[in-house]
Structures are given as C-alpha cells and as structure tokens.
C-alpha cells in the first residue's frame, strides 16, 4: 500500500535546538532516506520555512490571498514523502525510526494514498 508521510515540527521548539545537534540529526536524516530507499517510492520534498507560506482561501466573491500557513496550529508541515509497504504496521515501523522524532515537537502523520479511481469510471 502507498502512504504519504508528512513531517511536522513546531518552529518555536526547533529554534531551541543547537546548530550542532541539528546538523547531527540532519546527517542521520540523509542516512534514513538511504536506508529506506527501497520503500520510499517518492522522496517527496522538503519545504522552505513556514514564514514563506502563502495561503489562498475560499472567499465570498473570489478566492482570498493571505500570508501564512492554512492552519493556525503550532505545528507546521516541513515536508513529505511517499512509502510503498505491505501495511500500516510496516509504515509505522519505518516512521518510528525517523531521526527528527528525537526532537520535541516533531511528529509524522501517515495517510494512505488514494490509488484506486475505478469507482469514478462509469
């Protein structure tokens, strides 16, 4: 099954991590992508900081453009990848080893991908 994994963190907590520690974790992030290359069918993307976000929202007449992310939550999405593994337990096992999870405020959301569009065909 294909899963999108979304990496989220909390910017105010990220700021408290020392540059040396951050660099060391980043190195392990690269290793992590290498170690799971067979299951990562799309390495996805790492996003620029949330301060660069622009959101376009449904508006009464026309869509409205605003500064900032879509949600007011403290956690922000920092990137995503696509896993192709047997089941949710296999996805969880890989995600549990995500190096950033040792830093407070980090989480990973796992969502199955829609791959079957046959119900849309008539």
């Amino acid at each position, binding site marked *: *099954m294909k899963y999108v994994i979304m990496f989220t963190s909390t910017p105010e907590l990220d700021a408290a991590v020392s540059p040396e520690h951050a660099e060391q974790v980043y190195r392990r992030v690269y290793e992590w992508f290498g170690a799971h290359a067979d299951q990562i069918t799309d390495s996805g993307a790492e996003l620029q900081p949330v301060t660069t976000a622009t959101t376009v929202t449904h508006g009464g007449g026309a869509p409205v453009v605003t500064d900032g992310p879509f949600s007011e939550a403290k956690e922000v999405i920092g990137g995503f990848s696509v896993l192709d593994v*047997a*089941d*949710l*337990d296999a*996805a*969880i*096992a890989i995600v549990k080893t995500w190096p950033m999870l040792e830093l407070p405020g980090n989480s990973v959301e*796992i*969502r*199955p991908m829609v791959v079957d569009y046959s*119900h849309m065909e008539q």
Partner: protein
Amino acid sequence: MNGKDAAVPDSHDDRAAASDRLLASVLREESARIVAALTGWLGSLDLAEESVAEAIEEAVREWRARGVPPNPGGWLTQAARHNALDRIRREKRYREKLALLSEPETVAPEHRASDPDERLPLLFGCCHPALPPAAQLALTLRAICGLTTAQIARATLTPESTVAQRIVRAKRKIGATGIPLRIPEGAERAERLDIVLAVVSVMYSEAHLVAGGDAAADRDLADDAIWLARVVAHALPREAEAQGLLALLLFHRAREGARAVDGELVLLADQDRTRWDRPLIAEAQYVLERAAMLRRPGRWQLHAAIAACHADAQDGDSTDWLQVLTLYDMLLAYDKSPIVRLNRAVALAEIDGPQIALDEVDALRQFLTGYHLWHAVRARMLRGIGRDDEAMAEDLRALELTANEAERRLLAARVGR
C-alpha cells in the same frame, strides 16, 4: 474453559438470566472464529463483521424464544454467509467481489487444542493503536465477544448510535489504512499486547461500574473480560503479562461477592472475607506463580501481586502494607499514571502516616481534581490528621462527582446523608 464463568444455569428460578448467560457463552465462543474465517473468505473485515453481527442479532432473537440449536457455530456461519452474499448482491461496490469468491467450506473445521488461535490476529487488529480506545473496546466487544450493538450500548452506558458509529469508523479505518490482522512479532509484540490487555482490563472495569450501578445489563462484561483474558493467556502461554492480567481479573472476580451486598458497595477493608471465592483465588495465585516463572515482570503482574496481598490477609488489619507499598513502588517503574500514584498513597498512609500520604495526594490535584475517588482518598487522609471539616467538604465533593448510584450511596452514608 470451565471456570466460574461457565454457562450452567444455577436453578430453575433463574431461567431467564441463565438463558442470557447461555447465549452469551455460545456467542462469544463462536463469534470471533466466524468473523476471522469470513474475513479470509470475503477479503473484507468490514463486510465479514457486519454480516456476523447481523447473524448474532438474528440468533439472539431466535434462540431466546426457541433455544440454542445443536450446532450453533454452523447456524451462525450459514446465517452470516447468507447475510454477506445478500449485501454483496445489494451493494454495487461489492459486486465485483462476488465473482472472486470461491465456495467456502460448509462445515466449520474442528478446533484442536494445538491449533494456533485464529481469533488472536483479529483481536490485535481490533486493538490497534491507530484506533481510538473507545473504538478498540466497542469493536472487540462486537467482533470478538459477539455482543450486539445494543448490548454494548447498555453495558458501557453509551448511546447506541455512538457505539454503532465508532464500530463503523473503526472498521473502515482498518480497511482503508491497511491495518493488518496479525499478531505482531519481535519488539512490537509487548507494546501491542499491552494495548490488548488494557482493553480487556477496561472491559472488566466498565462491568464493575454497571454492576455497582443500578443498570441491569443483559450481558455481564466481567464475564466477557475474564473469558477474553483466558483466551489470550491460553493462546500466548509465554507472555507473562497475559497471565498477569488473567490473575488480576480472577482476584477481582473472587472478591465480587463481598464487594456488593444487596446492591450496596462495601469497601475492601470492611468486606466479609468469608464471602471471597477461595477456589478462584487459588486459581489466580496459580496463574500468577506461572507468570512469575517466565521471569518477565510487568505492570499487570504487579497489579495482580498487589491483589494477591489483599487476598492473603485474613482481615483488613492484617494486610501486609509494606509489601503492598513495595509493589506499588515497583509498579511506578512501568506505570506512573495518577491513578496508580493515588492507590499507592493509600498504602503509603498505612506505612508513613496520613500527612505524608496527603502531600502525595495533593501533588495529584491537577490530574485528578474531577475524579471522585481522589476526593474520597483526600478526605480519608484529612480525617487521619484531624482536619474533619475539610474532610467532610472533600467527601461532599466526591459525592457530587459520582455518577454511579451504589458508589453514591456509599459516599452518602459517609457524610451522613
């Protein structure tokens, strides 16, 4: 399987209740096996479980009126298969499945004691951490124990529509997110088993609430919980914690007869210990000893060991509180929850006095201020150091917070109302 919870009618006067018990015992033996077999055949837990649940509703209606047929498993399997095929024909989204189905075995295969228990993979799926705890419980009660939605609603004091929705959402999530129906291996095993055991334990404590309350449920969840604890302990004999939970529930069950007298709750210290079920205590002790021989301690075994201390004491005054406190200290290494710390404070009061225990109770205020027993324990500590007025105020607060009628009467008796 023939312990105290065996489905033998006690007397003829008790016929209606006995027949509910008989139904419960037959349904819980068959339900999970048929759900597991049908899931394999249909490739969908959602469809399989729904069809079995419908068959169980039919069975409850039929069998209550006409008695249990000679081969209840066969009856249920037939009915569930019929329901499944009916659904497939009705619902467009299932139609393509029909072509893929082969004819299943018409006779359920015989269960041999040496066969791996096919109910366990299903149970681990129902208790997956990706499902919310309330849904884990509801789905386990229906798919594994064979309760109807209405019975779950009554037994857990939850609206029927809420229970139904939890079950539907949980099953859809299992299907849509690829939650496997499998016993986890390796390091995952202990973590996942703990969730299963927690669900069984909640099942038992929910039963306690209902039994203590005035609601007469037609299924005693305590029976289901002990039955399920036995199934898990038997299927995973090398898992010490599974044995530990079974021992714990057996200790609690053994005290049940003294815990509620004429619908009134009796505190542990005041219970008439001659009403404790000695053979059941002996079984609990045996199970706990067997768990200890596996040399893999854990929180359920420690909870059971604490219950064993109480079972060993001739009366409340001869309780070995130092041993109880030591066990609570060990338990904290596995479970630092405020409830465990509150229970430990009761033992602490017996060893170090009520003032020291009160300090510990006060440290838990922010976690337990909405919990009636926190106020009841605090009242006891305050009374121990002569602050009677404050103690009375805490007892009144506990009374306000108690939803359960029998507990309410116990607390009301204490404040003289």
